[in-house]
């Protein structure tokens, strides 16, 4: 698998082409913005009945990443569910699937703005998670000197012009203080890295890692 290895605050990390982040020293896999149950929530609120297969698609990709990395810890960085009702309304089969993935692993649910409370699935519910120099929380905040913050929420995407065509893909954005994860869920869109919201969060010279067939690093377009 063609991953992008890099180091933040003496911690070696790997951006996987799937949009997951792997921390080899801890055998920890971090994914953000799964938005499980999104189709159910849209239908519940009177919207269209979208193909109800996004949860199993997301879980299929997650299972593959777990298999590949043999991760012992899984950290879901918020907005794991499209809302708390959709977490409760997950079909039994999909709940069991999550339980199977959790077997033999430590599972951390960091809360997000879509899922601000505990869910009745296994694992530990947290507001944020601190491990060594790394702080995991859903939405980026001001960082403190010496620590590195990992967050999600914005679903960053990167657009690259390739002589007459444009490629746009979900991407990791990082500088030496901060990393913003791409959305991992199947039914998620993205926010272009040129959006004004990213400018104050990431310093000049920040790097972007495009997801896709392989993880490809570019200077963050801004």
């Amino acid at each position, binding site marked *: 698998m063609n991953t992008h290895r890099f180091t933040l605050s003496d911690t070696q990390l790997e951006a996987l082409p799937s949009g997951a982040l792997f921390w080899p020293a801890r055998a920890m896999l971090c994914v953000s913005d799964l938005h499980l149950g999104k189709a159910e929530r849209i*239908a519940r609120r009177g*919207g269209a*009945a*979208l193909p109800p297969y996004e949860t*199993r698609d997301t879980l299929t990709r997650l299972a593959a990443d777990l298999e590949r990395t043999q991760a012992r810890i899984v950290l879901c960085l918020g907005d794991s569910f499209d809302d708390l009702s959709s977490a409760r309304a997950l079909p039994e089969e999909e709940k069991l699937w999550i339980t199977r993935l959790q077997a033999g692993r430590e599972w951390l649910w960091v809360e997000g703005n879509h899922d601000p409370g505990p869910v009745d699935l296994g694992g530990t519910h947290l507001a944020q998670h601190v491990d060594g120099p790394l702080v995991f929380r859903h939405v980026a905040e001001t960082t403190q000197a010496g620590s590195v913050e990992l967050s999600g929420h914005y679903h960053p995407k990167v657009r690259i012009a*390739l002589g007459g065509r444009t*490629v746009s893909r979900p991407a990791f954005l990082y500088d*030496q203080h901060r990393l913003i994860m791409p959305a991992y869920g199947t039914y998620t869109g993205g*926010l272009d890295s040129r959006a004004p919201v990213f400018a104050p969060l990431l310093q000049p010279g920040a790097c972007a890692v495009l997801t896709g067939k*392989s993880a490809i690093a570019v200077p963050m377009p801004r």
Partner: protein
Amino acid sequence: MQALPPVFEKWFASKGWSIHPHQQEMLDRADAPALLLIAPTGGGKTLSGFLPTLIDLADGTHEGMHTLYISPLKALAADIKRNLTTPVEEMRLPITIDERTGDTTQTRRKRQRADPPNIFLTTPESLALLVSYEDAPRMFKGLKRVVIDEIHALAESKRGDQMMLALARLQTICPDLKRVGLSATVEDPAAIAHLMARHPDPCDILLADPGPAPDIQMLTTEEAPPWSGGGAAYAIPAVLEQVKQHNTTLIFHNTRAQAEIFFHNLWLANDESLPIGIHHGSLDREQRARVEGAMVRGDLRAIVCTGSLDLGIDWGDVDLVIQIGALKNVKRLVQRIGRANHRYNAPSKALLVPANRFEVVECVAALDAVLAGDLDGEARGPGPRDVLCQHILITACAGPFDADTLYTEVTSAGAYSNLSREAFDECLNFCATGGYALRAYDKWQRLLQRPDGLWQLRDPRSSRNIRMNIGTIQDTDTLKVRMRRNRGGKPLGEIEEGFVATLTPGDTFLIGGQIVKYEGLREMTVEVSRDAAKKPKIATFMGTKFATSMQLSDRVQQMFTQTSWPELPAHTAEWLHLQRDVSQLPQPGRLLVESFPHDGRAQTVIYGFAGRNGMQTLGLLLTKRMEEFGLNPLGFVATDYATLIWGLDPVEDPAPLFDAHALHDGLENWLAGNAVMKRTFRASATIAGLIERNTPSARKSGRQATFSSDILYDTLQRYEPDHLMLDITREEARRGLVDFGRIEEMLERVGGRIDHRKLSRVSPLSAPLMLEMGRVPVKGEAEERLLAEEAARLMETSGLAQITPPPADKPKWRVGW
């Protein structure tokens, strides 16, 4: 024969008019359940449609709506209102007339629903919206007649299908409703009659005298047209000279961007300051209205326009129509030319201005076809099911409905007369539950069946969303353009969001004939300032892209077999001779393939003459084959004559690419993954209500909340490939993509006789292809390779490559820059 009432008789006499035979016949047969009039433009068609209405309403006893008039264009509704008001006022008839289009204000819309006018003018989309209201039966109470103007234009698209479904609804509300269709000359009147009738009732066809043959010529200029491009800037002096020699000239363009550029150049050359205006659909409503007003008053000597002025509008004293760029369809050409000399029995005068040398050939072929009275057209298949799904949702908005009744109603529309009950139920099930094998939404169905068997919306509030998504026109997202001034500067029009994304402050573009400078985006409005620059960055407005009919295509192919071309202007004949010298001309029974480098890419052109749809299919198939051969294709573009493919590696031997078995094998499973299918899915899923149109407020709330329709397509394809929506997508794609049979036919004709020419540069014949719009990207290995290369280059130039990714045993990256 029904005599005209005295007041009408007198009015006709005061105008010095006498009633046309077909107007009289329309009047005599006013009680027919459905009647289709085919008459040339200028034949008093509109009055033919309205005369029975005006006579019926003259005594002032009718209450509420009497006649519904539907036209494909907003501008046409406004124009008809103006034209009807004149006789109504002059005869002092007690008739109220009002219009409703997307431009009508909220207050006026409310008033119309509370107190409907006698004659109501609208568009198919506004009609569908009105039918979705619970009070539709009250609003349309007493309706006796419906007049569908320019039905030939509507019959070609889903707008017509939607309109006929709405009419089926109205017919249930008003059982005695009579239908009248007004059409320009078409090749197959019976097909339109079938669409229009209340099935299985008949629909009689009235053919008016077609009038004298039009006077059409190709504009000859001293300067030769360029090899490629669509601007026709070379013809500006000659066109200006024609404008001077005529009272009023309409100058038609195929796209809005071309109209803007041409208008700009025309204005720069307009030394005598002749009053010339511009009119197209992207301009602000007020601007359009101003130009229309000036046109009617006869204040303008010329108007540069697009298809937005295409249909039946009475612009007064137009005595010349100029068509810039080849018209790809003979039928449309004749209809446009009908705009000139709006007098019955006087020949229409028109000039064709080819924009490049290929179009010279097309123009000559088209003129031949017009002289031969050879109209073209393609039959449409059965009524599209995505439109039916939208209609089911619209019906649900109006109140609970019975499925059996709705099925009967739907099959009374000609296009849906063969719809099976099973297919209908599938669509109903899709609207209700999404129609998935995984019954995920039993709790949240959109439509519920009540204990009494009727279907209704689960949540009545969802009707708001459904109404906001009514319509079948696939519009790209546009943003309003305003002059930046203190607050609320002058609105200029709209441009595509995709175009805005390419702008950086300081860039200039054309809108409404003036060059403006992009200042920035404020609350989803594009702010601009005036700019004195002479050369703008081009505005890429969308424009309709017409497909050349097969029949024209055949004529062009025949011309290529000639040894010399005395009927062509010298410059174009020379161009064909040059092609023969440098490469060769495509010959019947053989397939010409040219390969050459251009623009840093390996280019290959296949002259297959299989029509645009066939050539598009061939492009899809060949790029797939090239991907298998490791030739790294990047994309292709198809015209009626040829397919151009570009990629990273040159084609050395085309023969294996055309292996019929291999092409055929890949067809089915590969078809699923391509960009054309995804585009078709997006369009159909939007119409069927699976995807909502992007509303301005939704766009404001941020992109990360919405996601690409491609994701839905891929997910469905992966988990439920037999789903109705994918079935509809395949059917719709087949309407656009000719089935494989045509390609097989071409391969058989060619029989392996491939002439491969490896050239060092672009050939004369392929030059126009380089600027062809509608390029289809191929997402394959080439894209990955380009991306990796570009990423490496970016990392290198930025200096980031030295610091990241750092090998684990090297010093860590942690310093600031």
